[in-house]
């Protein structure tokens, strides 16, 4: 029987660009290039490796995002995923994590799945909570923050390196897995992969397809509200000295002046 893997990938503004908020205090997606969240590349990579080990597996990549988010799907397809689902709807603008997870959960259920894989956190919101929320909504085990993952005989196992201990985890499928950037370098799409991706199917779903009311999502339907966003003032230029044999001592002098010594 085929192993159905759904990988959730997010389209985010490039972290090395000048990221800003717009007037309605949502992320400005127009002035900075978007891309597949780098941390989700690790999720795609693990899906590809799990699929390689399985007799028969199909990888669907799923995103909730604006028109341009298709770029993120294309990248994942060019890495080797089989097909893609894009949930896109004007009413989704400004959706928070509760709304996004609701949409993802409905889409995942509609697509059908045995295993859901996500990144550890997006590189824009960086909340790192969506995987746990999704597991709760789907009612499946959460096997999260894995630095190693394996799927065999309907069981997923993995290693989670926590704050105080490293844990070995195990759960039965269907399950939700999130992987960290320690799980293994993501592959680069090959030229062949990029060409093949152009022919792979990308389905577009809207809120109606998922039987979600507009007021359950978007800025208005949000469970949270951002009241203000202010750019941090640039740090005032510090003192910079060149080491000419006394650099360590000069630094010690500075630290003493600041009462750190």
């Amino acid at each position, binding site marked *: 029987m085929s192993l159905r893997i759904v990988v959730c990938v997010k389209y985010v503004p490039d972290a090395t660009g000048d990221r800003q908020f717009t007037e309605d205090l949502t992320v400005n997606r127009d002035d900075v290039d978007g891309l597949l969240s780098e941390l989700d590349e690790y999720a795609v990579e693990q899906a590809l490796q799990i699929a390689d080990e399985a007799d028969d597996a199909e990888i669907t990549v799923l995103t909730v995002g604006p028109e341009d988010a298709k770029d993120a799907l294309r990248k994942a397809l060019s890495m080797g995923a089989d097909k893609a689902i894009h949930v896109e709807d004007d009413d989704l603008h400004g959706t928070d994590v509760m709304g996004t997870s609701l949409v993802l959960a409905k889409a995942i259920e509609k697509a059908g799945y045995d295993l859901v894989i996500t990144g550890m956190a997006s590189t824009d919101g960086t909340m790192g909570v969506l995987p746990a929320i999704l597991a709760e909504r789907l009612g499946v085990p959460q096997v999260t923050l894995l630095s190693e993952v394996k799927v065999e005989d309907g069981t997923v196992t993995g290693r989670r390196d926590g704050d105080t201990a490293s844990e070995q985890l195990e759960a039965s499928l269907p399950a939700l897995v999130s992987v960290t950037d320690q799980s293994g370098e993501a592959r680069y799409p090959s030229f062949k992969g990029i060409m093949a991706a152009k022919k792979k199917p990308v389905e577009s779903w809207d809120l109606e397809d998922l039987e979600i009311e507009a007021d359950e999502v978007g800025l208005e339907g949000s469970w949270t509200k951002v009241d203000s966003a202010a750019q941090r003032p640039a740090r005032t230029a*510090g003192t910079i000295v060149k080491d000419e044999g006394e650099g360590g001592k000069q630094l010690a002098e500075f630290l003493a002046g600041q009462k750190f010594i």
Partner: protein
Amino acid sequence: MAEVLVYVDHVDGAVRKPTLELLTLARRIGEPVAVALGAGADATAAVLAEHGAVKVLTADAPEFTEYLVVPKVDALQAAYEAVSPAAVLVPSSAEGKEIAARLAVRIGSGIITDAVDLEAGDEGPVATQSAFAASFTTKSRVSKGTPVITVKPNSAPVEAAPAAGAVEALAVTFGALATGTKVTGRTPRESTGRPELTEAAIVVSGGRGVNGAENFHLIEALADSLGAAVGASRAAVDAGWYPHSNQVGQTGKSVSPQLYIASGISGAIQHRAGMQTSKTIVAINKDAEAPIFDLVDYGVVGDLFAVVPQLTDEIKARKG
């Protein structure tokens, strides 16, 4: 006065500092009721009371250690139902965030993660967050349900505020999802005797410039001279020179100490995301153009192999 649930992060009864900081914030918006789970939960009561907990709800069961996260969500939910609080505060550890997140779904509430400050507002608590690698500061609130907010370490002072801290047993029934993910093995992290990275007042970090695991003792010696925690960049961690648990940055620990010293670290955006809110930033780097110098209060352009040992010696000499 409204009650505020505070989830307690502790190790065998020893309460970790971020929880005491949460009590300070909780008192701004109501009366803290602490929830302590697992082995040693009862032992947390004294210190929690000293810092303002009017009540400490405790529960222990093998489920808390044998299964991942969900049993703790069941318990926090039981506490939520027993107390009907005005807000739920949880420390922003990886696990804390997951517990908070699942509780928020269950009680139909919005969630705010990684708050760096919290104050009372007309429409409920207002949280300050730091966005886009700390280049923005936002103020937000939960607009549906009971606010669930996770708070980063070092976001508030620890303050003594003696309260009753009466211990009460919390009755917990585990749901079907609680036993979904089994913890089949656990290797505790070895203690180095140094302060915990996220809680430390001073952090000394090394990057690719340290050029080998065998040279990290220079960074450690500097850290020890200051009573600091040791951090590392991802480049140093990926090279296997230092454990991943010491990584500072977007996918490592996020630190906000009084003093951060970066040696041989260029200051990539992902590294900055984890240390930019440090109060005082110092860098030692041989490249005058390294982006880390844009952040510093004091920078030394020089070879860390010369500067760091000299600095360590000078600190030791001054401390006598």
